[in-house]
């Protein structure tokens, strides 16, 4: 397959990525609106509408960012990447487009349902059974398309991206199906429902989204830098650790209560193991970018991927820190866990997604980006915004936890402690949204060919001798 040849999946991947960009703006906007209500509670008294209630905005924005922005976006870039690294083109382009549209329909239906009728209250499963069904149908089409030919070309390319792809692609349907059966068919009684929610939350973050992002890291880093991953056994060990411990990590969110204490302890162990896996992976991709600062500065795709890979290890380090028994009893039930979301979702997954779009979209459109300097605006706004959000949530969470555990501090005072940090968080989230707006305008301008392209950044231009060397190095 000619690596620059437009594939039949290009319409599907464009639908998925365009949807992802739109959902990110909507999700980010709703998130700001929710936090604004927390900062100025009187705002909710002016025009109280159920669709603008805090209790609906929070699950709606979280759903949009997870399933709409990151989920849809990662599936979109994988649809560009996989046929190229497996060298097997997709067939049935219309079917794939149908799958991509169905995914957007599921996100739209879920989002509308949460805003209009409210969330189900279940962790990472705030939507109704009908939305689950649409997700299933869509994923059946997209997942089959993405993994098609993976077995046949298993030995002809780098192993690690394939291993992570296999994990991520299987975790979503198996996890969603099991969670749906246990939670909404009356199979899981009482406290078992809570355990099930925690397992499903782990599946979404550590066994579905994180592996899909790692596919991109392990495929794009070597391609962009021209260096190969040094130690396969270490990579396989990290993969094994992630898959084994990934489903257990969220148990550390619970503090006493209905979750058995041994499960909470396994959550701590899983968090440590996931951090070890992240460290192992960092040892693998750090040499790929070492001494390449000039290139990282110049190439915005590489810049985002580097930020994302460092955020990957930082987010697992923060999660491990919060899981430690002495820390957990202080930070449980606080916004310190939102700091983890900032690092994991926005900095790790968001940066990997942005870097991948910058690197891969020109491949299917056979074009570049309008201007290099405007791309940097996207980088700095989102990076600074996420950093501010993380710092705000982290400090607020620690302070909130200490105050909550001090019976001498009245509860109303605890809430007031959050205010100054909420200002920082809101500024950070607004900055991120500005960056994302800059990106979306660039993205749609590129798709619609509104500007001359001055910064071409295709990853697989066959004319580049460097890439040919790289392909040889990988194989």
């Amino acid at each position, binding site marked *: 397959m000619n690596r620059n040849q437009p594939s039949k999946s290009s319409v599907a991947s464009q639908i998925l990525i365009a949807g992802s960009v739109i959902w990110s703006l909507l999700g980010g906007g709703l998130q700001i609106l929710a936090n604004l209500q927390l900062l100025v509670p009187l705002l909710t008294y002016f025009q109280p509408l159920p669709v603008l209630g805090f209790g609906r905005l929070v699950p709606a924005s979280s759903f949009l960012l997870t399933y709409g922005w990151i989920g849809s976006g990662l599936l979109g870039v994988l649809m560009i990447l996989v046929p190229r690294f497996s060298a097997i083109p997709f067939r049935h382009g219309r079917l794939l487009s149908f799958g991509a549209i169905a995914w957007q329909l599921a996100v739209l239906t879920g989002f509308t349902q949460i805003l209009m009728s409210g969330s189900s209250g279940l962790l990472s499963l705030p939507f109704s059974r009908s939305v689950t069904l649409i997700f299933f149908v869509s994923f059946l089409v997209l997942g089959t398309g993405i993994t098609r030919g993976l077995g046949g070309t298993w030995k002809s390319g780098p192993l690690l991206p394939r291993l992570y792809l296999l994990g991520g692609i299987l975790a979503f349907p198996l996890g969603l199906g099991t969670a749906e059966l246990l939670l909404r068919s009356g199979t899981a009684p009482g406290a078992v429902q809570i355990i099930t929610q925690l397992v499903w939350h782990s599946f979404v973050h550590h066994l579905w989204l994180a592996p899909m992002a790692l596919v991109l890291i392990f495929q794009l880093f070597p391609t962009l830098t021209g260096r190969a991953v040094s130690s396969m056994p270490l990579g396989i060990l990290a993969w094994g650790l992630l898959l*084994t411990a990934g489903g257990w990590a969220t148990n550390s969110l619970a503090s006493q209560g209905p979750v058995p204490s041994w499960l909470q302890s396994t959550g701590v162990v899983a968090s440590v193991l996931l951090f070890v896996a992240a460290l192992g992976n960092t040892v693998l991709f750090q040499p790929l970018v070492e001494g390449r600062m000039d290139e990282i500065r110049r190439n915005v795709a590489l810049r985002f991927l580097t930020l994302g890979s460092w955020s990957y290890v930082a987010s697992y380090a923060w999660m491990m820190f919060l899981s430690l028994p002495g820390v957990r009893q202080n930070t449980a039930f606080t916004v310190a866990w939102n700091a983890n979301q900032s690092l994991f979702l926005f900095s790790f997954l968001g940066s990997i997604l942005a870097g991948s779009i910058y690197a891969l979209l020109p491949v299917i459109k056979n074009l570049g980006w309008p201007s290099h300097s405007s791309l940097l605006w996207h980088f700095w706004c989102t990076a600074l915004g996420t950093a501010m959000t993380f710092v705000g949530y982290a400090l607020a969470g620690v302070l909130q936890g200490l105050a909550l555990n001090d019976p001498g501090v009245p509860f109303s005072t605890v809430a007031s402690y959050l205010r100054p940090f909420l200002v920082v968080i809101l500024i950070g989230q607004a900055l991120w949204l500005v960056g994302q707006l800059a990106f979306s305008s660039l993205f749609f301008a590129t798709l619609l060919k509104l500007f001359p392209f001055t910064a071409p950044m295709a990853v697989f231009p066959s004319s580049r001798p460097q890439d040919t060397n790289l392909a040889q190095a990988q194989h």
Partner: protein
Amino acid sequence: MKPTRALALVLLALLFSWVGQVALGYFQVGKLEPVINEDTNLPNPPTPSGFAQTGARIFASEGCIECHSLSVRGPAGSADLTRGWGPRRSVPRDYLFREPALIGFSRIGPDLSDIGERMKESNDLMTHLLNPRKLKPTSTCPPHPWLFDLKLAGHKPENDAMPVTTQDWKQLVPSYKAKALVAYLQSLNLGYPLPEAPLK
């Protein structure tokens, strides 16, 4: 590594996560049964009414769980009991009849595991839903006026009409949803002893 071996390992790891947690968890906490109180001959935890069960769904759909937890911790390393959020810690048996079973992971508002005991008057809970700042001026809880219906008052207001000033001879009456939600909140209490969590 062969693709079949990789596939088997992935499936095994995913299975390990579900079986290890849910199946073992089921054997530990899924088979719990209510304890019969010898004095009253009633089960603990008490079986909630169908109306309260409906209220539990409204509690979930209104997103109350985004700010309120439903899990009181013991005295070791937490001030939950000292804050008066419950007479004892929450244990798995407390969640036997909860549908959906939720614990919440945020405490922007106080824990509600024992709110039925702390706010016994349904009028207080209704007032809180309509205007949280009326009872507590510093409350950050948003109002939920959409859970109330504006009706013509006629000669005299209905018995459950809210004591608020309205225009044009109208009255504000709690809707079915508001009543169900209040019934659910009133059903939340930890004031019964369990073998694994006796009262103080």
